[in-house]
């Protein structure tokens, strides 16, 4: 199974790079003053890990292909050379094994950053993530804390089929004891990964393969080695007053495009990038909906019991009287991800779906 993913990493992924080209064009059209720096998400993640390893000798990286191969997606490029094989450890193929080992090392005081080649493979280790990592601090009454980060690509990529495309945000975010983060931009990637590595609790860090190559403008502040984003705080990517669109990861890009299309039709959409799935920033979510009175939530994952369901429940519970329209949920299709490109496109939310839902919430269409 992982053979397929490995092949894609070597090729660079043909469909992924074409998507990259179209998206980069749009991003630079939106970028700030000329002369501002840009950084890919890949470089952002790499620099974050590098800086944290440099600052704290207890931080080490572990996973399949992270060392000599420079990382299946090149996120750990250059780290083996810089820090040596003890701190950049190429593991045998056993997710359950290296996750358990990471937890044991964390119990003993090290700070492992464990890479899953994709979070789909984390299911083989999920007992260790939940029962060994998430619950340990509680079960041991504070005696065993687990400062571990589990990171890797999550959700759909392009043409990788059912066993490589599932989104695990809802599963992990339902577990007390875990923190679950999902970066979108390069700044998110840097700030959230640094925060995750420094955090004494176990963190599930959900990246997105298709975002790795995408470039984003990045501020001087974000490039500083002490830069860190708070865990549990969402970001308002675009302010608006007519409808709130809430999402995370790659869908933030789609939501921003949808907001532009909606603006052409006179609808001002506020786009919120969750950044943190657990803890969920209910305050920001509800404040926004109380302002706009309309909610559209978007995620790539399966619809039942998804992240959007939790957001809708929170808004209905806390801001019911502010709502002027039923809450809208957009999620992936309730099917294992098909391979054929047309079917895959149909199984995932597209910009048009977000636009339609926002218009429905504004009573502009059926």
């Amino acid at each position, binding site marked *: 199974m992982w053979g397929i993913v490995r092949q894609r990493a070597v090729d660079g992924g043909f469909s992924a790079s074409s998507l990259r080209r179209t998206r980069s064009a749009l991003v630079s059209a939106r970028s700030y003053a000329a002369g501002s720096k840009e950084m890919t998400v890949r470089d952002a993640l790499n620099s974050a890990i590098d800086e944290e390893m440099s600052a704290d000798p207890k931080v*080490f990286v572990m996973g399949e292909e992270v060392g000599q191969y420079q990382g299946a997606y090149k996120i750990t490029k250059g780290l083996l050379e810089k820090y040596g094989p*003890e701190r950049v*450890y190429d*593991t*045998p193929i*056993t997710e*359950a*094994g*290296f*996750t*358990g*080992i*990471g*937890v*044991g*090392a*964390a*119990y*003993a*005081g*090290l700070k*492992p950053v464990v890479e899953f080649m994709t979070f789909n493979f984390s299911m083989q280790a999920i*007992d*260790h993530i939940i*029962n*060994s990592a998430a619950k*340990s*601090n*509680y*079960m*041991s*009454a*504070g*005696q*065993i*804390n687990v400062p571990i980060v589990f990171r890797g690509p999550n959700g759909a990529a392009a043409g990788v089929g059912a066993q490589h495309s599932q989104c695990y945000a809802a599963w992990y975010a339902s577990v*007390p*004891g875990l*923190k679950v983060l999902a970066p979108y931009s390069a700044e998110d990637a840097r700030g959230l990964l640094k925060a995750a590595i420094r*955090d*004494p*609790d176990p963190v599930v860090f959900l990246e997105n393969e298709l975002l790795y190559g995408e470039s984003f403008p990045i501020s001087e502040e974000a490039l500083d080695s002490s830069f860190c984003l708070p865990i*549990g705080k969402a970001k308002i990517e675009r302010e608006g007053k007519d409808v709130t669109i809430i999402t995370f990861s790659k869908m933030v890009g789609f939501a921003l495009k949808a907001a532009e299309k909606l603006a052409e039709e006179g609808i001002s959409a506020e786009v919120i990038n969750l950044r943190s799935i657990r*803890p*969920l920033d*209910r*305050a920001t979510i509800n404040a926004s909906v109380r302002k706009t009175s309309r909610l559209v939530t978007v995620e790539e994952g399966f619809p039942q019991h998804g992240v959007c369901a939790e957001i809708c429940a929170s808004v209905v519970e806390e801001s019911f009287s502010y709502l002027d329209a039923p809450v809208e949920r957009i999620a992936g299709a309730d099917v294992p991800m098909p391979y054929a490109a047309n079917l895959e496109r149909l199984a995932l939310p597209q910009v048009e779906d977000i636009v339609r839902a926002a218009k429905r919430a504004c009573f502009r269409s059926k």
Partner: protein
Amino acid sequence: MKFIPESSPQRVPCYRVLDENGRIILNSDFIPVSEKLAVRMYEQMATLQVMDHIFYEAQRQGRISFFITSLGEEAINIASAAALAPDDVVLPQYREPGVLLWRGFTLQEFANQCFGNRADHGKGRQMPIHYGSKQHNYFTVSSPIATQLPQAAGVGYSLKMEKKNACAVTFIGDGGTSEGDFHAGLNFAAVMEAPVVFICRNNGWAISTHISEQFRSDGIVVKGQAYGIRSIRVDGNDALAVYSAVRSAREMAVAEQRPVLIEAMTYRVGHHSTSDDSTKYRTADEIQYWKMSRNPVNRFKKWVEDNGWWSEDDESKIRSNARKQLLQAIQAAEKWDKPPLAELFNDVYDVKTKNLEEQELGLKDLVEKQPQDYPPGFHI
């Protein structure tokens, strides 16, 4: 063309020092044990036996909800603990409370955990027998089987990186070696050259599954070589043999920075737990035989007595003292308050998140406003 046969004509021999009558076998090599150490070992084995019986009875009387005994495995428990250094990190399965007892966990502390009261170091978070103590380098018992094995490899790796003069020691039963984590843990420890001592208590039964239905190999010891791990089979009911084997294994693990596997042969005299009635799947005769004729405590007692280090007087004293202390500990533990409401929300994270703070306030408010739903004695 030659196939390696599925089994060897001879089983791997078992290292032993004392015969069944507690006499040193001629020409056996072992690490000598002083009178002081031997007496302490025996006292603790006897105490562990009394503790098992009393807590088991307490569960039967409904005073605690659950219990697991280590009956028949007292030599493995105490002798292995005696052979380790205090800095060695222990990751137990669940039938090794004797290791914690040896390291200084008091009978009152055991009772507090079983009752989940306010004094419990575990703050009432876990079922009975899920003891843990950072202070004693004994990781909190975790229910899923064999997860401690790759964790031990990780702990060993951490000790290796910090160049500590210590090793990780982890226990597993015969049944637990069927788990995927057994493979991952041993393979990894070997590849990482981590200082880990893996001790398998082969006690013949995994609840109702006999070893003949668990694996087709010659026990567990033969699996070590498959991972490139030095291994030994030892008579787990022979305290001196266990002491020597664990002591040697520990030295090798630390000095040579490698994992070592010990298979300790024994028998599970008690039921799997208080939720089990093993007479349903094995004969009462079989249990009785191991309980009486192959008892590790009696065997070691004979050796200690033969050396003139122990008398019948000492025997009745240690047992009655242990019994008295345990009954007092249980009475006290039973009476003490359960943990307060705040402990429901603590330790989920290092620092309580906002939503948990809100939930705690909400619950406190509810308890205040609806006292009739929270009967007197409901500890807040």
